[in-house]
């Protein structure tokens, strides 16, 4: 009741509305417009017409409405059909009046209905928003608005753009508008041949997708000279696109390599340095990923920082589990590789089922922090995804920290001593059992850290570890057992090889080819890329 009363008052207050001023960004609109009522009544298929009418009626005053609608947050109150905006998500949903922004705390989810939106409508809304934003204050918003309109050029838009082109101060936006004008001029058949040809000439250094689409259409133009020029421009554009595609592919390879590196680096210690075949390595990764999930559950309002808590937490959880496994099982099977393999395989199954029982067999949702989502756009055809970029840097950082630890610290010295000659180390007073436990804990802890990174890329479920265990062993064996540098080189080699094979052979065959290559390679060089030399080799 309260809400309705406020709303009635509100409508009354707003009736003598003033037209919004674009520069202030604050819009005042007539909430009682009959067009707005249409929103709550029209069928989805008839909505595009309503959008057009709304644009004609309110223009930029309706910008917040269009944005809310596009985001799927536009609702209306069932009883009086007034529009409200949904705030928040999940269980903490609240509503506020559209336009005025007055909170409506009494409104329950059951009392409102969503104003539907589908793909067709989203496209429509986007172009309407773009048209409105052509006069935005922010130059990057203007540029994005022009880019959005590239695919939807018509006489009206061109008229507006021509006016803006003269006034525009920002060079980037000016260039983008010029591209749009050229694109339209090139495809407009009423223009003379020379105008069209020079327009195509101007387009030939643009990498915009819509420009390429436009030129592709022009290659079938009835005017032979225009078609030939479009073809020529396309060839030169495509050459540049190909070059960037190569860079893209290299980045994909490095990124896959970094994932392989993270997954296998822990194994490089437990298997490579200690010589334990640990089939439960994948489950250590899984535990790390689940730790990330639990950490996010505990701090739901600070997802952006949760990763920084999750990294040490995952290291501890997986590391402690590793120490436990080493003390209880592996140390009793010393020097019996076959039994170790079977025992650790059993542990891996136990851990999987344990997770299934505790967390359910369904995948768990791990959110990506906002600073990790999206991509770094270098130009229209080359953009590097941020999460992959961070993970690449993170993998290298972990690797360097580990190398330092093994080379410079006393633990590292002990580990190397024990792995080279256990009896001699024992004779020198090294507590080999303690070193074994610590080394295994370290390897497992790093697997846990890898789990934190992988939780950002793939499913967090009981089977997470299984998909990485084979790859991890492959990398360690290929790189040379017991050699961290080898693991680094092997991970990136395999990653890049895989990504360069994939476009031609498909993902399934690429994986097979890489495996076949490794088998052949191991035949030739059984000790991997960087075999250990000297006494350590025995």
């Amino acid at each position, binding site marked *: 009741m309260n809400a309705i009363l406020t709303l009635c008052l509100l409508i009354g207050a707003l009736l003598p509305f003033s037209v919004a001023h674009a520069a202030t960004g604050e819009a005042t609109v007539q909430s009682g417009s009959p067009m707005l009522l249409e929103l709550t009544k029209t069928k989805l298929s008839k909505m595009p017409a309503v959008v057009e009418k709304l644009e004609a009626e309110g223009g930029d005053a309706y910008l917040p409405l269009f944005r809310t609608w596009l985001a*799927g947050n536009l609702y209306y109150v069932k009883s009086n059909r007034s529009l409200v905006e949904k705030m928040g998500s999940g269980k903490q949903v609240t509503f506020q009046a559209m336009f005025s922004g007055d909170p409506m705390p009494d409104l329950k989810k059951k009392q409102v209905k969503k104003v539907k939106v589908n793909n*067709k409508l989203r496209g429509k809304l986007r172009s309407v928003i773009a048209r409105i934003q052509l006069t935005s204050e922010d130059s990057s918003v203007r540029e994005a608005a022009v880019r959005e309109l590239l695919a939807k050029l018509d006489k009206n838009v061109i008229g507006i753009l021509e006016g803006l082109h003269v006034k525009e101060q920002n060079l980037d936006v000016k260039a983008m508008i010029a591209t749009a004008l050229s694109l339209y001029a090139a495809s407009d058949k009423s223009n003379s041949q020379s105008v069209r040809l020079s327009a195509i000439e101007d387009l030939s250094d643009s990498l915009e997708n819509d420009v390429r689409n436009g030129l592709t259409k022009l290659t079938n133009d009835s005017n032979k000279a225009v078609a030939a020029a479009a073809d020529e421009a396309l060839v030169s554009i495509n050459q540049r696109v190909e070059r960037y595609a190569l860079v893209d592919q290299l980045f994909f390879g490095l990124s896959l390599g970094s994932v392989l590196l993270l997954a296998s680096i822990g194994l490089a210690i437990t298997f490579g340095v200690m010589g334990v075949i640990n089939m439960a390595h994948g489950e250590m990764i899984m535990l790390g990923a689940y730790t990330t999930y639990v950490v996010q559950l505990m701090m739901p309002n600070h997802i952006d920082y949760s990763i920084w808590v999750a990294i040490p937490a995952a290291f501890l959880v997986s590391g402690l589990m590793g120490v436990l496994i080493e003390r209880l099982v592996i140390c009793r099977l010393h020097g019996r590789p076959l039994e170790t393999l079977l025992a650790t395989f059993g542990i891996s199954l136990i851990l999987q089922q344990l997770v299934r029982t505790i967390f359910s*067999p369904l995948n768990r949702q791990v959110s*990506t922090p906002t600073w990790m989502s999206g991509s770094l756009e270098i130009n229209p055809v080359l953009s590097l995804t*941020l999460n992959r970029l961070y993970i690449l840097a993170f993998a290298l950082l972990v690797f360097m920290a580990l190398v330092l630890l093994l080379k410079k610290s006393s633990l590292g010295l002990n580990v190397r001593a024990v792995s080279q000659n256990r009896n001699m180390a024992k004779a020198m007073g090294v507590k080999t059992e303690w070193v074994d436990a610590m080394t295994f804990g370290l390897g497992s802890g790093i697997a846990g850290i890898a789990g934190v990174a992988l939780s950002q890329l793939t499913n967090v479920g009981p089977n997470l570890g299984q998909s990485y265990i084979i790859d991890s062993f492959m990398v360690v064996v290929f790189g040379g057992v017991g050699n961290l540098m080898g693991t680094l080189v092997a991970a990136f080699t395999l990653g890049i090889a895989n*990504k360069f094979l994939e476009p031609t052979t*498909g993902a399934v065959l690429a994986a097979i080819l890489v495996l076949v290559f490794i088998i052949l390679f191991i035949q030739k060089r059984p000790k991997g890329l960087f075999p250990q030399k000297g006494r350590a080799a025995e």
Partner: protein
Amino acid sequence: MKIKTLASAIALSGATLIALPSMAADTIKVGVLHSLSGTMAISETTLKDTVLMMVEEQNKKGGLLGKKLEAVVVDPASNWPLFAEKTRELLTEEEVDVIFGCWTSVSRKSVLPVIEELNGLMFYPVQYEGEESSKNVFYTGAAPNQQAIPAVNYLKDELGVERWVLAGTDYVYPRTTNKILEAYLKDMGVAEEDIMINYTPFGHSDWQSIVSDINKFGSAGKKTAVVSTINGDANVPFYKELGNQGISSEDIPVVAFSVGEEELSGLDTTPLVGHLAAWNYFQSVETEENEEFITQWKAFTKNPDRVTNDPMEATFIGFNMWANAVKDAGTTDVDAVEQAMIGQETPNLTGGVAVMNKNHHLSKPVLIGEIQDDGQFETVWETDGVVAGDAWSDFLPGSKDLIADWTDPVKCGNYNTETKACSGQNY
């Protein structure tokens, strides 16, 4: 409070566990053959719970033919050969009267020889590739013409799609479905170079280059869509990568056949909003039957956040039809129930009535939905009436002339209408 409910839940489940084997022999046994461990546990445990819920409901109504129903749950552990062994165990040792089970096609194929040899009865509740009709199996999920073909029609007619990416996981369901779709698209005049087919291994997680390929394929000036038969787990990284590379559902919509409410409940749906799925059921459909079913399900699982999905509706329909057929036949004898099944009608949860056809497939409505930010689907299109499930595709050269008809005089799962002969092959 919470501890109390938990304790009572444990006590209850303990009670059922003890109660089951101690029941008298005079019960009707319902076998449940769904993986409770291994990779498929993620999807199949839900269906096990659905069957248990249905059994409980039926017992509340007084059971069937004056007897109580008793569920016999086994765990084939996502291990395909084990499905055959467990079926044999259910039919010979437990002597169950009906089995509800299987998810993947390969598990069903593994069960078929056993269930035909021992003359059992199975209900299969998942959308599948078709090209099969067994006397002993009822298919309550969608055949390709009840899911894939309408989805393609929607994309073509409503969204004006001209270029097609058929992406799938590398196993029998996507391969066969894509073969049917490719033939169908070519029939409609789509050129070879406008179709891109891509297969990836199970659980594929590195989608960077494939998504970038799809993006390139879609930048040719023609509206492009992805028809995805990518299996459960691999979907999350796929959609995440689409979002990361900035491909929105307006640029290149993805219509999926294996992504339902259950799969969406495990992920952040923001990058998926606007992508599509084709099913015969959505939880969001507002009907009285559906509301009742959802309330029942949430109460049964004691979890107010649990979602329902299409294979659950298929299980629901299958179970109700079986119960009615047993009542009609007056016995649980497989041959009698099989004949009584044909022509059975039972209400859909989405409104209307599902009918069991002579070919052991259902007539059901087809819905296309857009993914919303709350993990639910918004129905954007549906077929006018129901679509009859087609056991043999009309678009594949080998199966064009085949029909399945389990009534007299044909009584055959693969009857060739040209040569007027039954191939004699069992399934």
